[in-house]
């Protein structure tokens, strides 16, 4: 039987009635007794606490570390100011996406947060940089929490008075009862919020200190998925993978002008020869939002057609389900780029074709503090 890793918060999850499920090799809470629907709505209205300790945390250190990382990711790292964070992609030689990640400039080092399922592969990939004199240090003694929602700022301010001064995508360090917190103003829910890396010795106490705040409820992976889906955010392994190019995944925005054709540091990352011309010309497929008519959710794997009968298969749903804040089903699919919002396509569900409207992303407007 497979052994699943447990975060330091495992006992806390179980004590609070969480239903635990295997996820990317970890035993993680999918929902608490409140249920996915109410956890989702609670996060949108108040503040939700997510255990994201399964995600990979990595420190990169060394001379010209930003330049070195730019050989593996398509983001602008040299232009990343100290105390700021950016979203980026690891790409492969074929132009596919190996993982998406967050990169923070913390002055004397870069701090990376990568997906749990890809962490091992990402770290092995990063070790190429050792030849350039970069030290790759997986962070194995810290937990990671996400506090998300419109009341996250007021809640965190009670424990960390400096937090409200942070703007969207700022990173900073704060002391909490002798523990150094690595805080970023970011998240993956479409809400204002913070991600907080904390030494494992204090992670339970810190989580408990947040959970006694009246605005805060613990939230599982189920609601994390519906929140990010409504926010139009792609999830690795679903909306992008090693065979999806950044432009197709709707992530061209994460590749800045400096690294595009004609830019000051054009290319220089794996697959640039494939990715950059495609961004310049526009990719043939793109990730689009879908709103089915009626109440039936269309989920990952459902085929999309261009006609109510017969016709051509356009693609398949990469993420889909019920959007509690939208109050109906929502989905995303990578479809031919010619389709524009308002167009109707058909989803084949249980042998029947249902009309679906192409809809701009996100389904739910984010509320970041810029």
């Amino acid at each position, binding site marked *: 039987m497979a052994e699943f890793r447990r975060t330091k918060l495992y006992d806390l999850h179980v004590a609070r009635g969480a239903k635990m499920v295997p996820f990317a090799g970890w035993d993680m809470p*999918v*929902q608490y007794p409140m*249920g*996915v*629907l*109410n956890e*989702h709505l609670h996060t949108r209205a108040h503040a939700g606490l997510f255990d994201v300790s399964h995600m990979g945390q990595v420190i990169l250190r060394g001379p010209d570390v930003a330049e070195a990382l730019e050989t593996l990711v398509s983001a602008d790292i040299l232009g990343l100011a100290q105390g700021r964070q950016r979203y980026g992609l690891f790409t492969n030689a074929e132009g596919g996406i190996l993982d998406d990640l967050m990169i923070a400039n913390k002055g004397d080092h870069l701090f990376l947060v990568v997906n749990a399922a890809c962490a091992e592969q990402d770290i092995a990939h990063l070790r190429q940089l050792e030849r350039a004199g970069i030290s790759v240090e997986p962070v194995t003694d810290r937990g990671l929490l996400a506090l998300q929602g419109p009341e996250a700022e007021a809640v965190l301010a009670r424990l960390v008075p400096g937090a409200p001064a942070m703007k969207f995508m700022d990173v900073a360090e704060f002391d909490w009862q002798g523990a150094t917190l690595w805080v970023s103003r970011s998240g993956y829910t479409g809400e204002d919020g913070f991600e907080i890396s904390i030494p494992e010795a204090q992670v339970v106490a810190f989580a408990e200190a947040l959970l006694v705040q009246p605005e805060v409820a613990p939230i599982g992976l*189920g609601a994390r998925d*519906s929140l990010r889906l409504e926010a139009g955010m792609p999830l690795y392994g679903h909306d992008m993978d090693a065979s999806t190019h950044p432009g197709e995944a709707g992530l061209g925005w994460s590749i800045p002008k400096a690294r595009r054709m004609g830019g000051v540091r054009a290319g220089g990352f794996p697959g640039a020869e494939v990715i950059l011309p495609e961004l310049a010309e526009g990719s043939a497929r793109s990730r689009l939002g879908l709103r089915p008519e009626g*109440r*039936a*959710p269309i*989920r990952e794997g459902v085929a999309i057609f261009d006609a109510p009968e017969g016709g051509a298969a356009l693609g398949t749903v990469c993420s889909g*389900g*019920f959007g*509690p804040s939208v109050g109906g*089903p929502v989905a995303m699919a990578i479809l031919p780029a010619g389709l524009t919002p308002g167009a109707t396509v058909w989803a084949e569900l*249980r042998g029947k074709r249902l009309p679906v409207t192409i809809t701009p992303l996100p389904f739910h407007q984010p509320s970041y503090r810029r």
Partner: protein
Amino acid sequence: MLRYTEDHEWLKQDGDEIVVGITAHASEQLGDVVFIELPEVGREVEQGEEIVVIESVKAASDITAPIAGVITAVNEALPDSPGAVNEDPMAAWFFRIKASSVDLSGFMDEAAYNALIG
């Protein structure tokens, strides 16, 4: 007397018809129900045929016909308020099915069902 299937349906005999719903255990496992598709009244169904689609926030699942017969009625209120399945699964019946002879003795009683769900 209520009877139960291994698919977590509850069955209640009413003359030559049986009323079918899902158990509290099933409702809990499914989580928040957001969509229900019911069979057409008058449809002839085989035992084990998937005749109801029930979707929660998390996943889609089916409800099967516990016996062969004809669907005589469906709970028309359910598709508009699928959450009723979570609020009161015993009241939220899905369909009634009629057969020439109804014998539920082969299905689990409450004690056997409780043992199944442990």
